[in-house]
């Protein structure tokens, strides 16, 4: 069974790499981008990867891969309705996001007829976890239960995002909640991608050098790029087990493809594979749209009173419980 799965996996990986599966969003004729002075297709500039399309296809849209133009117009109309408050676990609380410019209605995004970002498997869902991954998650939960450490004990117990260390930069790069802005910069032999939130830059060499050694692990992995025609292909390995993209391990392997569809749109497509996590690789794509620069610094540690407030809230709660 294991061998059969492995065989299926490599066959799928080859098919996906060859573009045989999951038709790509195609609009009009292939676009020929301008060239940088050193001859690369020019992807430079400022881009938004804001998306109103969910990663996974909602159950009520099962079997429906694309919206019609009319349906998409309705989806866009609904998305424009301001979502003024935070809805968290059913509790409506706190911000008027509209006032602070944080709601997506105020962010530019590319039109996408797809009903899910995931294009493969064809049902638009993340493939099932491997038995190993299920066991791993259970073991982690069990270890937490017996460690005596609570989630609010100290800063190290808080999620990386609260600690201003890592949000959803990836790769793969999924939309941030806000400030979902990117800058692409190219120089001879390199592409650099800067993400506004939380100010992380990925420097991608294009000279065909191998990945770093197996003992080196990085939050954003180790990226190597190459041009296939006008498409930038970026291969990333050497992840840590701290970032855990959707429960993945350090054996995560990400292949991203950036293709300009027109002067103001990049089609971003990625395939993720982790034999320790999912029963098969999966692929998603989303169009990015050109925006006005510049990107602003996002010095997240600078004003991160939120972490201290969260911990002091927990201490106050403990004192209250102890006093009862």
């Amino acid at each position: 069974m294991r061998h059969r799965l492995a065989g299926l996996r490599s066959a799928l990986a080859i098919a996906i790499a060859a573009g045989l599966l999951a038709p790509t969003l195609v609009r009009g004729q292939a676009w020929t981008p301008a060239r940088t002075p050193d001859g690369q297709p020019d992807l430079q500039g400022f881009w938004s990867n804001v998306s109103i399309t969910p990663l996974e296809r909602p159950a009520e849209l099962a079997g429906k891969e694309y919206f019609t133009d009319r349906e998409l117009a309705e989806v866009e109309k609904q998305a424009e309705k301001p979502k003024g408050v935070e809805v968290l676990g059913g509790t409506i609380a706190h911000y008027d996001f509209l006032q602070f410019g944080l709601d997506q209605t105020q962010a530019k995004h590319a039109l996408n007829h797809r009903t899910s970002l995931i294009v493969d498997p064809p049902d638009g869902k993340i493939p099932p976890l491997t038995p190993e991954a299920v066991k791993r998650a259970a073991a982690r939960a069990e270890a937490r239960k017996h460690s005596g450490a609570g989630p609010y004990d100290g800063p190290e117990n808080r999620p990386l995002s609260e600690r201003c260390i890592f949000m959803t930069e990836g790769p793969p790069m999924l939309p941030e909640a806000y400030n979902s802005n990117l800058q692409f910069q190219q120089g001879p032999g390199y592409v650099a991608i800067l993400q506004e939130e939380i100010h992380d830059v990925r420097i991608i060499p294009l000279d065909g050098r191998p990945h770093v050694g197996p003992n080196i692990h990085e939050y954003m992995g180790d990226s190597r790029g190459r041009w296939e025609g006008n498409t930038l292909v970026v291969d990333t390995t050497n992840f840590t087990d701290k970032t855990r993209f959707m429960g993945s391990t350090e054996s995560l392997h990400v292949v991203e493809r950036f293709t300009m569809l027109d002067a103001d749109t990049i089609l971003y497509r990625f395939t993720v594979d982790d034999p320790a996590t999912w029963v098969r690789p999966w692929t998603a794509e989303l169009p990015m749209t050109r925006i006005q620069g510049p990107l602003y610094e996002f010095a997240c540690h600078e004003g991160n009173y939120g972490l201290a407030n969260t911990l002091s809230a927990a201490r106050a709660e403990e004192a209250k419980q102890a006093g009862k």
Partner: protein
Amino acid sequence: MKIVPIVGLILAAAPLWAHHSFSAEFDINKPLKLQGVVTRWELTNPHSWIHLDVKSPDGKTVTWMIEGGSPNSLFRLGFNKDSLPPGTEIMVEGYQAKDGANRAVGAKLTFSDGRKLFLGGSVPGGNPDSAEPPAKK
């Protein structure tokens, strides 16, 4: 075409809103309304903080800190560090910190005459379709 599934889709698409959990930091059971004078505006990421001097009924002045949105987003809406000078009188509706300190999240902020402070959606760069009518005085 069914409308309901589409609405469901949009809700499903909404990403996590903030870099931290509001409910871990602020108390939904401690809503408050403050009127005071701005003494300082820290334009820091991931959240800006407004320092506000509030006069209590017994005449004492208490300084509050109010958490607001990311300055990066506010800049794009046309705000900068001069937009909220010290001395400006504002009203804040929000929720107090769970530890009982004089800190709160600012849910709604208005000038003392009722005009909204951050006119997200109705300023240059915002989405005009999502603009709300100005608050009535």
